[in-house]
């Protein structure tokens, strides 16, 4: 069994001009996709933008993204020892990398 999860992560600030970057993440059974993304940030690239606050409890509902084309919470989607493709939500306005504008309009800052 492979002990590596290969995460292909969409990067960019412009929907039309993004790229997939590939990261090899050490895999331990039971981990979440969010664990993998946080590992990438701490070990490879702190500029990778992700949105989360509760980390593991699925309480804040902030870590929504697309995993292999399906919308998931990264904190409850299991990391698997295979290639996984992670993209920002395609139906929300992109902010950067995996971060999209997910707040209801009335809760966004308007100057």
């Amino acid at each position, binding site marked *: 069994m492979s002990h590596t999860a290969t995460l292909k992560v969409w990067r960019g600030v412009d929907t039309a001009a993004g790229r997939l970057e590939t990261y090899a993440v050490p895999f331990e059974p039971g981990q979440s996709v969010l664990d993998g993304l946080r590992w990438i940030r701490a070990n490879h690239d*702190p500029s990778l933008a992700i949105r989360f*606050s*509760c980390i593991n*409890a699925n309480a804040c*509902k902030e870590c929504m993204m697309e995993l292999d084309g399906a919308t998931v919470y990264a904190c409850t989607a*299991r990391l698997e020892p295979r290639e996984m493709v992670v993209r920002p939500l395609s139906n929300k306005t992109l902010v950067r990398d995996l*971060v999209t504008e997910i707040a209801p309009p009335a809760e*966004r800052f308007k*100057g």
Partner: protein
Amino acid sequence: MRADPTHVETDVLVIGSGGAGMYAAIEAARAGAGVFLADRSLIGRGGATVMAQMTVAVALVAETPDHWSHHLADTIRAGRGLTDARLAHLLCEEGPDCIREMDTWGVGWARRDGHISQAMAPGHDRPRCAYVDFLNTGPAVSKTLRTVVNRTGGIRKAGDLMIVDLVRRDGEVSGAVALHLATGAPVTIAAKATIVATGGLTRLYRRNSASANMGGDGYALALRAGAPLVDMEFVQFFPIGHLAPRLIGMDPIMWDPFRYKLGGRLLNAGREEFTARYGTPEDGRYVVTRDLATYAIIKEVEAGRGSPHGGAYLSFEHCSAEALRQAFGPVIDRLAANKIDLTKMPVEVAPIAHYHMGGVATNVRMETEVPGLFVAGEAVGGANGANRLSGNAITEALAFGRRAGRSAAERACGARQAFRAADARAAIDLVTADGSGAELNTAAMIQTLQAAMADDVGPFRTQAKLERAVGVIDRLTAALGERPAGDSGAFDMRRIEWLDLRNMLLVARVVATTALRRTESRGAHQREDFSEMVPEWQVNQTVRMRDRRIALASVPVMVEVAAQ
């Protein structure tokens, strides 16, 4: 040339939209003030309230004869001589009003025979803890307050807005400077009154039970604005945070409600109950307080009797499948999805950073020493002394939030905006600075700090460990430098984390330094080199910022219960 920052004006600025911030916003708006509710995350989603799965302690007299004075006596006893009785009084006396108001707002407190159910929790003299089944207290409280915020006129909401610094004019807080995360742009906010409701500092620790937002930013904001902090050495560790097997979609403090309902057995590697060895036998009941349970688990691990991942076993194997299903409801299925069958296996638990007793010093109006600056919820210091009782955190969020909202609205009424753009310049420069260019891995730096705090400024401290932690803080502070990492574009996490580290390192230094100075053991602060509680140390430590350095002092405990 830079464009001027976006500027907004409000009567009352509320920083943080957990339970305390939302209640404060509602109350200030009801008092007629215009409110600007800012959160670095989503409104009502980040912070600690939404994570609370447990109970809310209040003398409701719903099921059992009770009076707030009994709750106050328990709160003061738990605080090991350091509780600010004025604040604890406010918490205990006004808590029931807030809980009843939440009830009218439809939060859905669990009921039995038409009465709000009240569970027994350690440290309380009688059943006093209301809750929402199953594991839903915090989410229900957050959702209810969010709904009320949305239907209350006069509250503007601003998510993705990280407050970088408070702004002062003539020694008073006149507003704040913020970074709008979604665009990277600076924002200035003029406010007649500002409420810090940013929660605690558990993010300073590797394993913690709150959200990644709780990095002590409110303490740092208040300190830099001239307000003193109090009791900063007292970090509460929750003894039975989930350790193994790996669970997803569950908060690590999830086991507590089931201990209330079913007891559960805390066991060492030899599958023996062990808390009696440290003075409190359990006998299948949940009676051991948090500081004692934390001590007992860590000592068992040190003695080589820990569970495989370095904690203790928590077992419900003696409970029937039916009893488990009744107590856990749908959570049984979520556990099954994580391959956990409680009738056949124990889980492993270990102490986890959970709550901060210390915080910003305040009077009963929730006003700090700095005019215009108010504080609410966990960000407040003193109400829980050296150790917080189970159930007091949501109660204080609501009671202190409501009081802070009212006081801030009173100040704002008739006051003029004192904000001047020139006073905001230094903070705006931080937000808009060209990157330092240094290849800092801010995410790794946070992990380094968390490891140092967990290993050396945890529940058990020594001079050598604390000094080692201060050394790490010194090195990280030097590496961080004066110029922010990253750039001023949209959601640059290097910039966000640089600003977080600026706060976290200041607050970590405050915790380690106050812990070094307190040469005794009391409540959540246990010194292995000073293992006794010393009467001379029945004082609160305060921390102030003077010439960019922190200055410590001791002050007498507020033991008088003042008229409210």
